[in-house]
């Protein structure tokens, strides 16, 4: 096996082992969307009427509508959380250790990204299993088709986290970024309401939602869960992934020195 693949396997395995030891993180990742699904959706079901929009072919309950958005939420939190661990790692040194490996830095960062995305996807499937128990069922093919969509969306959101972690120097700043990234991205998306519902209140709001990469991640997952490909969402997610990756690579470029700290 080549040096690159040996390192990839080890980095992904390390992420997995660390995750296994963080039971509270797994529980939080599972409980958060479930609270939304059970409490929030139950309250909003009455208030929000949903018309039939693709990919749905019949009237759906609100719970069914928000499941893909909650999958996206898991990936969003996971991506931000693993970049939080990068900022923390950088402080404590294990990120520095990783960067002393004799491999291209871009590859090392990509391995890290793939590892955290894999953890995110596991969480999503755990959530989908619980949602299934609550009666929100997809077809078997839908669960399979969702995998590449989740992978792409997870990589994109992880790359965003990676880019942010390279630009943020301190944990305190990072807490602010969480508030300014996670909440706007989640609420200004189609995770909770479809675009036409947003347009009812404001066209500007709808435009922001339509441009939000997270919207496209959610739509990609939504269509995939019903065995369909949303080409527009796919392109948006792919382009966002490329942009965020480029930003992260720039941020971690040793000559640019975003990693520099006063010392």
């Amino acid at each position: 096996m080549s040096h690159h693949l040996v390192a990839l396997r080890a980095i992904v395995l390390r992420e997995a082992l660390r995750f296994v030891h963080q039971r509270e993180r797994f529980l939080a990742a599972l409980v958060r969307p479930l609270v939304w699904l059970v409490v929030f959706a139950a309250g909003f079901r009455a208030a929000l009427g949903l018309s039939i929009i693709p990919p749905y072919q019949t009237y759906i309950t609100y719970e069914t509508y928000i499941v893909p958005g909650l999958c996206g939420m898991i990936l969003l939190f996971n991506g931000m959380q693993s970049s939080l661990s990068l900022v923390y790692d950088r402080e404590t040194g294990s990120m520095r250790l990783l960067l002393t490996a004799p491999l291209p830095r871009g590859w090392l960062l990509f391995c890290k990204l793939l590892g955290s995305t894999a953890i995110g996807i596991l969480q999503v499937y755990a959530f989908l299993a619980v949602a299934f128990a609550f009666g929100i069922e997809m077809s078997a093919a839908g669960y399979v088709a969702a995998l590449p969509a989740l992978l792409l969306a997870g990589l994109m959101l992880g790359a965003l986290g990676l880019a942010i972690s390279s630009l943020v120097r301190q944990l305190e700043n990072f807490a602010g970024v969480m508030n300014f990234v996670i909440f706007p991205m989640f609420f200004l998306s189609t995770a909770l309401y479809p675009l036409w519902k947003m347009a009812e209140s404001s066209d500007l709001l709808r435009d922001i939602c339509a441009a939000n990469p997270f919207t496209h991640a959610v739509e990609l997952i939504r269509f995939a869960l019903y065995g369909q490909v949303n080409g527009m969402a796919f392109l948006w997610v792919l382009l966002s992934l490329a942009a965020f990756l480029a930003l992260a690579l720039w941020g971690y470029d040793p000559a640019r020195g975003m990693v520099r700290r006063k010392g």
Partner: protein
Amino acid sequence: MPDTASHEPGGLAVRDVSFRYGSRTALDGVGFEVAPGRFAALLGPNGAGKSTLFSLLTRLFTTRDGRILVAGHDLSRHPRAALARMGVVFQSQTLDLDLTIRQNLSYFAALHGLSGREAALRIDAALERLAIADRAGEKARNLNGGHRRRTEIARALVHRPSVLLLDEPTVGLDAAARAAITDHVHRLAAEDGLTVLWATHLTDEVTDGDRLVVLHRGRVLADGECGALRGGRSLRDYFLATTGADAPEAVPGGPA
């Protein structure tokens, strides 16, 4: 590819390295060479620029001013070849506490392309060398500070580097662990022919036979064999006199 211009292919060479944080100069024309198999102490008070130099040596970031050669490999032109020959022990603790000693070392071995039986053999050898082989199956969390440090040194040796860099490796350790670690690493240089750069602000970690580089305010103030440099004085007195009295934190046994 080895740099033939280097006279000391196994050692470490820092040549005219400067670095600035914005308008503040952290390193100003720093240069010294460490011959293969030598133990060199980089002695300097806090804020002397040791951490910045370590960041440059480990390529956390780079500078265009000056050159760094690791075992003959230019760090900026052939970073991967240089990094492959280098073992690093960082000042901050970098073990995964929930993983076992062996898992920690396996992870690192894989970063250097080692896996399977080859990795297992090297890990055993490194743990044996640092006398912690019997703890291999334990979680890092269960180890005391001294043993965690030993584990990190063992980890830095897994890929058989020729240059070992340690950034204030005894910070936070008690006197006995500090002496044991210092002694261990001196033996690595003397017995295994490893080139060692040991950054510290504690004069009692340096012996007369060591190469001594005194760094202060980003410049090299003295460079030579420790015994010859200090002459009749204690190293502590020599160090205080060289760096001026404005470095009380350099006094060993002083307030931490």
